[in-house]
């Protein structure tokens, strides 16, 4: 897993990756429901539950 930072929906790499236990979680930036940019790395120093879901 490289540490390529990905932002604004632009993929820095088109390669699909698998993130394994023991590896660093890839950082990303996405807008909150209110439109504020949030980065995973904003949570550094805390335990984080990253939870992916959808309305469908």
């Amino acid at each position, binding site marked *: 897993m490289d540490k390529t930072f990905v932002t604004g929906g632009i993929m820095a790499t088109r390669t699909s990756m*698998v*993130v394994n236990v023991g590896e660093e979680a890839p*950082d990303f930036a996405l807008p909150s429901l209110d439109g504020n940019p949030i980065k995973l790395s904003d949570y550094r120093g805390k335990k984080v539950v990253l939870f992916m*879901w*959808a309305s*469908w």
Partner: protein
Amino acid sequence: VEVLSVAMDAQGAERARPYVDKARATFVTVVDEENMLGQLYGFRAIPNGFLIDEQGVVRYKKLGGFDVRKAETSSVVQRWAAGSDLSESAVGHDTQSGSELSESNALLRQGLELYRKGDVAEAIALWRKGVELDPANYILRKQVWAVENPDKFYSGDIDYIWQKEQTEKGL
């Protein structure tokens, strides 16, 4: 422990918001319209969970069946928060990283540009190509179902019997 919730909704925040409101969520929800995380973390379906420690290292992942509203999930999270090692650290099947996943996600993004301009039919045509390339990409596949059949998703309960029929028909 903080929860960062990611709605994988190509249709945007307004589709996700009612669920967040209903759950009276106190955590932050972000919206991943372009399926950035499916590509970056390697998954083709949801719901998924990654437990990430203070240093940013993944300590547990569950692909499929992870839902912070469920007792089973919150029990795992609570044990981890309390400092215990989890007996199983990876649950569920990894997605095979392959060009077909990248290509179908590229079609998702291209279709999304058209969708945002209001060219819904053309967007769906591109998305259908993506589904053909990678039928296992349920992030794209179910998104198409939801755009085409909002009544099956957004008026009352989600119709899972109908979804099973769509899968069986190869749609």
